[in-house]
């Protein structure tokens, strides 16, 4: 009995240590954003690094004064909203066709989609840059959205979820008089909320911090997203860590809000799509 309790205590200690390891940088960011710039680095060696001693909002005011933060936030929200929104429709339809319809070349396409999962974006960034530049697509929203709507990871997640849905439901709908698209929208989607939430969160996280592509394709601040804005704080003197951390907090907040909103479905989605 004692032995068992000891193990439980040990478990909790280990888990707490691991949790601290992950939470510490976030706490550091929040605490640092609320201190005068000079104290951010000087308090690094004490516990005060992660504890905000006072609530000083000056860094936040600085961020708004130095750059048009609202404009960048709007750009990021619009680009990500479009990538996620269009992506949900396009990838779900593609996955449904792969999971349920019989057509020539289906297995080949499926293998291709799976193969694309392992190709990092950096490997195709330059060829993609040349291709889209040749089309004259530069420095606008479209060029930041279009290449990312179709997403092999999203297709794969949808595909494996659809395979697990009872086929009889769709067959019943077909017999009841619904066509393929009607069946998809009226029967499949309402029963696939977890995977939609999962894909929404995963793709949102994937592209919210995107840096390389907008850097290559845009020059105008009017269409650039948040990650490029934060970069100006590193490159343009003076480098003020308090401002950078305040920017960081404001950039993470939308992600947190979306994650919490979709969390119940997301957890179910992770359980049913088998990603971990």
């Amino acid at each position, binding site marked *: 009995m004692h032995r068992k309790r000891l193990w439980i205590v040990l478990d909790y200690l280990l888990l707490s240590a691991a949790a601290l390891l992950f939470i510490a940088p976030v706490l550091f960011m929040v605490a640092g954003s609320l201190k005068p710039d000079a104290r951010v680095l000087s308090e690094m060696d004490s516990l005060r690094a992660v504890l905000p001693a006072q609530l000083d909002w000056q860094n936040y005011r600085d961020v708004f004064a130095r750059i048009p933060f609202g404009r960048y936030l709007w750009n990021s929200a619009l680009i990500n909203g479009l990538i996620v929104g269009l992506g949900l429709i396009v990838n779900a339809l593609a996955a449904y066709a792969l999971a349920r319809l019989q057509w020539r070349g289906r297995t080949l396409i499926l293998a291709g989609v799976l193969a694309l999962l392992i190709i990092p974006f950096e490997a195709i960034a330059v060829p993609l840059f040349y291709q889209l530049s040749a089309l004259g697509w530069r420095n606008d929203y479209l060029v930041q959205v279009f290449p990312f709507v179709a997403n092999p990871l999203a297709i794969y997640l949808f595909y494996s979820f659809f395979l697990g849905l009872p086929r*009889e*439901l769709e067959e019943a709908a077909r*017999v*009841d*008089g619904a066509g393929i698209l009607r069946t998809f929208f009226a029967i499949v989607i309402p029963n696939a909320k977890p995977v939609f939430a999962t894909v929404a969160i995963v793709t949102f996280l994937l592209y919210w911090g995107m840096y390389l592509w907008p850097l290559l394709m845009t020059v105008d601040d009017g269409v650039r997203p948040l990650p490029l804005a934060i970069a100006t704080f590193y490159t343009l003197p003076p480098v003020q860590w308090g401002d950078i951390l305040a920017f960081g907090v404001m950039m993470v907040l939308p992600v947190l809000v979306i994650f919490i909103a979709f969390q119940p479905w997301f957890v179910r989605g992770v359980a049913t799509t088998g990603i971990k």
Partner: protein
Amino acid sequence: MSCVTFTHLSKRYADGTQAIVDLSLSVADGELLVLLGPSGCGKSTLLRMLAGLESPSGGEIRIDDMVVNDLEPQQRNIAMVFQNYALYPHMSVRQNLTFPLKMQGLPRQEIEERVRTVAERLSLLELLDKQPKALSGGQRQRVAMGRALVREPKVFLMDEPLSNLDAELRLQIRQDIARLQRDTGITTLYVTHDQVEAMTLGRRILVLKHGVVQQLGTAHELYARPANTFVAGFIGSPGMNIFAAKLHRDVQGYALEIAGRSLSLRSGAYTGEVLLPFEGNTVQVGVRPESLCLLDEGAGFSVSLSAVERLGHEVIAHFPAINRVGDSQEEHSARLAYQDALQIGDSVKLGLSVKDLYLFDPNGNALPRVGDIVSPSATD
């Protein structure tokens, strides 16, 4: 109301499995035809092809005079009840019933009327606003039936609709289905692997094995005139005992040699003309468990009981198969009047009347009995 015709229908899956082999069949307007067979015999495939959920590899399917091979499921005006009911889990009972009518584009008032009529008929009125997950198995089954009925379809398909219910409910809903079908007069194809269900529901029963039609007939025809050893063994509970015996001729006529004994066929149901081609050969002999009786003494087959099932009013006694044919039953059985004394391991004598014997050729096809007008054929 509609009739359904299959002509030389076949289905072969991509992996080479032959699910249906050259099937021709006609289902009359208003008929309830039962498709019976063990799992994997192709009965569900046949139903799914009629519904348009699978496409045939060859042959033709007609509903009335229209070939429907290339029609989408939604164009066939067929309703189907699935084994797992397939109720839409995100819709209430009312929405489930409404869905097929909305797909037809009916005006709202007519939809409401039809839903109410069907809900009344199936006692679903109180369940209309519930979600499927809040219903019991029997209620779900009724909703599934309602969703199929509400469309007033040309043909009604049921794929083992009772297999998820307990025995009592199954009996009750079986009667409900029979009554509904009679009242509505909708042509119905009903798939089951349960022979009791098949025999109580269908006027005609189609027995399938490996996609090949074994016999089409009434419950009594399947029982009393099985077309082959498969039907003989499948119909009846327990099925017919089949064993091998040598047919020879003695001074009194034809006789069978079974387990070292000679059994004269003189008073049996087979004429010499039928038996002549098999003289000197081994044939297959069938006897129903209920045709066997316990003998106190005298000429009979001595068997040692391997299992005894007491059913209250009777006893089913099992014993190692006599002259087993190929990989057929390992055990034979006898349905005997109830007696307490029978025990496993008892050695008993069983007798039978020659009239109750069935003879099959070495391939397992029934030999025509006296009184058969034509030999039973697989398709008609």
